């Protein structure tokens, strides 16, 4: 089971630049749906990848679903050469995304984020409309329920914002 608060805390305390996306971003906005992994889009600069590697190294990151014993090393070189990684860690499943369908890379997504105060740090979370657009762009049948929930949430938020002075 993924320990979402601990994993987010680890990334924040490691100074990693990332954006919460996927199910946990949905939950941060108020969605009530279960999700099993933490999805983040990370900035692909050398400095940030270094921070990411240093932060995750103690959590024994390994390729999710891969047979044990592969010569996988989660280091600067591996992350630099790759893009998206689906990992297991000692705190649970983590999807490290260099880019996402319908959203692009960190720099493109950054303009469509909101800043949330989580665990004493400022954390970037993909804005709700952008989150819906990325889910729509992914075009997966399994996401239809989730998109409907996010759109209903957006309607509720808009209603609420209109009511508040």
């Amino acid at each position, binding site marked *: 089971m993924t320990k979402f608060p601990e994993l987010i805390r680890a990334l924040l305390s490691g100074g990693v630049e990332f954006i919460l996306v996927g199910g946990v971003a949905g939950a941060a906005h*108020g969605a009530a749906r279960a999700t099993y992994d933490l999805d983040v889009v990370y900035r692909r600069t050398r400095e940030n990848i270094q921070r990411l590697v240093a932060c995750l190294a103690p959590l024994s990151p390994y390729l999710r679903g891969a047979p044990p014993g592969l010569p996988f090393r989660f280091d600067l070189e591996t992350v630099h050469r790759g893009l998206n990684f689906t990992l297991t860690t000692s705190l649970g499943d983590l999807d490290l995304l260099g880019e996402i369908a319908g959203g692009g890379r960190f720099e493109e997504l950054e303009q469509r984020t909101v800043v949330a105060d989580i665990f004493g740090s400022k954390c970037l979370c993909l804005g709700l409309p952008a989150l819906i657009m990325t889910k729509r762009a992914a075009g997966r049948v399994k996401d239809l329920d989730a*998109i409907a929930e996010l759109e*209903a949430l*957006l309607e509720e938020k808009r209603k609420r914002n209109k009511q508040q002075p």
Partner: protein
Amino acid sequence: MEALRKSAEADFDKGVSLEPDPVIEVYKKDVDRTLLRENLKLTVEQRIEKLASFMQFLEGIRGSAQGLP
């Protein structure tokens, strides 16, 4: 923190308009909005803690269910 949360809430829209999708509209009818309204009363941190606690509950149920015939 409350001020930051409110400013984040206000920023959510950022002028994005989404064209209604007829398929999504059908699915939307089944969404339990009472859960969403309850979640909207919480802070972002509380929502994440709630998700973590829900997932822990599911894990517990799954563990118990393994003993079922």
